[in-house]
């Protein structure tokens, strides 16, 4: 890590209860500038619930979520609505792809620009100078993002007609359209073949390097996680069981046990 790293996201003792079930139990996590951080764990460990708490879809039971946008003061975003969290600069993708099926690929990305533009109903009807300029910028920027994820040739296609891997990349482009400083990717490689995973791997690293966006990702594909992430957090049954560099995690007995079951490593 370079010297001028700064914390972007700081989660302290985050707990989320659903009735009597504690899905996330006192998780502490942080992401700094220019980092790719991975959150791994067996199915049902509470990773997606953690994401939903951070992005405002759930209101956490306890704990603090602090955001330090670059060159701005710190915000505590517990209980913020999802759109406010996004406007602050945290964008996410979904585990089960949630695209706007009956809109074109380009329009999907243009939605991401919504919180960075201001045209209201009256402006849209009158189509004044300001509206036209914003519309123009939205289109240009959206095309640019489609180029970056390699989907320009699909621009006018309905999102539902895209191949699976392309839908995943479109979700990333849509999230990037909101101008985030932190991108939260929920299992971006799920269901992809090895070639697609490799491309995704490169895409994520490229986003980090060229766009200056830090990344927090949930992933099951160990190869991808070990390849690109600088730090890894491991969760099991809502609790954090390990934290460290890929090498440390690989040899951590607790992690091996969580993944392979009890007695998996003492043979």
């Amino acid at each position: 890590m370079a010297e001028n790293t700064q914390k972007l996201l700081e989660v302290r003792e985050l707990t989320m209860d659903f009735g009597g079930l504690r899905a996330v139990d006192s998780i502490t996590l942080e992401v700094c500038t220019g980092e790719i951080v991975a959150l791994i764990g067996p199915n049902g460990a509470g990773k997606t619930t953690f994401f939903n708490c951070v992005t405002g879809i759930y209101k956490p039971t306890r704990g603090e979520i602090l955001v330090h946008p670059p060159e701005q003061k710190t915000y505590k975003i517990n209980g913020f609505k999802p759109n406010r969290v996004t406007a602050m600069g945290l964008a996410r993708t979904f585990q089960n792809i949630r695209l706007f099926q009956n809109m074109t690929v380009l329009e999907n990305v243009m939605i991401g620009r919504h919180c960075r533009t201001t045209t209201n109903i009256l402006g849209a009807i009158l189509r004044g100078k300001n509206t036209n300029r914003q519309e123009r910028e939205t289109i240009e920027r959206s095309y640019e993002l489609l180029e970056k994820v390699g989907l320009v040739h699909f621009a006018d296609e309905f999102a539902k007609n895209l191949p699976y891997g392309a839908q995943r990349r479109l979700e990333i482009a849509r999230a990037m359209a909101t101008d985030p400083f932190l991108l939260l990717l929920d299992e971006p490689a799920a269901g992809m073949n090895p070639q697609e995973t490799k491309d995704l791997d490169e895409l994520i690293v490229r986003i980090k390097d060229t766009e200056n966006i830090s990344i927090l990702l949930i992933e099951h594909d160990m190869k991808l996680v070990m390849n690109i992430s600088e730090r890894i957090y491991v969760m099991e049954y809502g609790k954090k069981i390990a934290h460290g560099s890929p090498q440390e995690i690989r040899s951590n007995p607790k992690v091996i046990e969580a993944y392979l079951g009890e007695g998996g490593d003492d043979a």
Partner: protein
Amino acid sequence: MAMISYLKSCLIAAIWFVFLTFPLMVVKVNTLKNTVEWRWMNMLWVAIGAFILSAVWRWAMERRARGASQKEQESSDSDKKPSLGERLLEDPKLYRPLLGLVVALALLMPWVSEMYQVTIWVFALIYVVLGLGLNITVGLAGLLDLGYVAFFGVGAYTYAILNTRFGLDFWICLPIGGLTGALVGVLLGFPILRLRGDYLAIVTLGFGSIAKIVYENWEGVFNGARGIEKIARPGFFGMEMDISAATTFTYYLMLVMVVFTIFVTNRLKDSRIGRAWMALREDEIACVAMGVDMARTKLGAYALGAFWAGLVGVIFASQTTYINPASFDFMLSAIVLSMVVLGGMGSIVGVVIAALVLNLLPEYLRAFEDYRMLVFGAVMVLMMLFRPQGLVSNVRKTYTHSKKVHAEEANG
């Protein structure tokens, strides 16, 4: 071989219908003379009718299945040939003359036909605007609204009360009616922001019923079931107009309203706001996660949909000069919603066509009055089976981009 099995299944259908209708169509017990009359000819007609209908039905279903597989093949080819309907909408050479013809006919209509016809068309155009307004709420934003008629009533009663009690002019009341509608839309919108789909439909259905009951029972304000009469027709710079002239005037006013509505909806559809509505319709969670303010977007859709209903409510009251709660029945909401669904969710041209067809067809089919609802129902069932996307499926705008244009130039 296929032909034989085809005929066989049609025959089975015919026999089944004969069996079903046997007690009603064939046996007739005369209780006065204590005799039983056997009408065997009826059985024959039922059999023939059922056979033919079943054959047509099967043929249509097969054609549809073939069409679907053909479509799949077509979409694998890179260049698709658009259907005639699509070409009509996309090619300026085709749609401009057609549009000119429609405009000319619409403008000339009152001079060549009787007042009765003009009145029918005024109501048809009112429905067009209602359909386009509901299209914003249901078609674009995906908020199923079964109580849309309530906003129409709000507009009509606003004008009726302001005009008969306070003597306010039509032209002042027109925007007031629209704004009152929008305001009530927002008020209703607040409590139901969290609801979706079926739940939303039930609440709006309830709201529509409540509105009607309030009009019926709040005697002091709405004059109860007796309704409000002697509502002034629209004036035009103090010109004296008889009924016929006033109807013609309202007709032209409605034409302007329709054009205005189409203009506004069309602009909204491809704007930041319209895209947010569509995203909300497609996936609410993804939509808010992409930074769209759900509350504001939903309320906007409600308010704008209700605005048009309030606006034409004023015109409706001025045209009929008498309104009572019976005019704002649930049936009206249902018909307006059918116009949106049959026309094609979100499609402006489709909704206009569907609104005109659904309103004018019953008027011109007075001869078959008894079977009107039967035909209406059958058309709906057939539409949903064979063209669930509506008459005109919603075509999305494609955007051009400077880099894309360069790339195409380089290629071509």
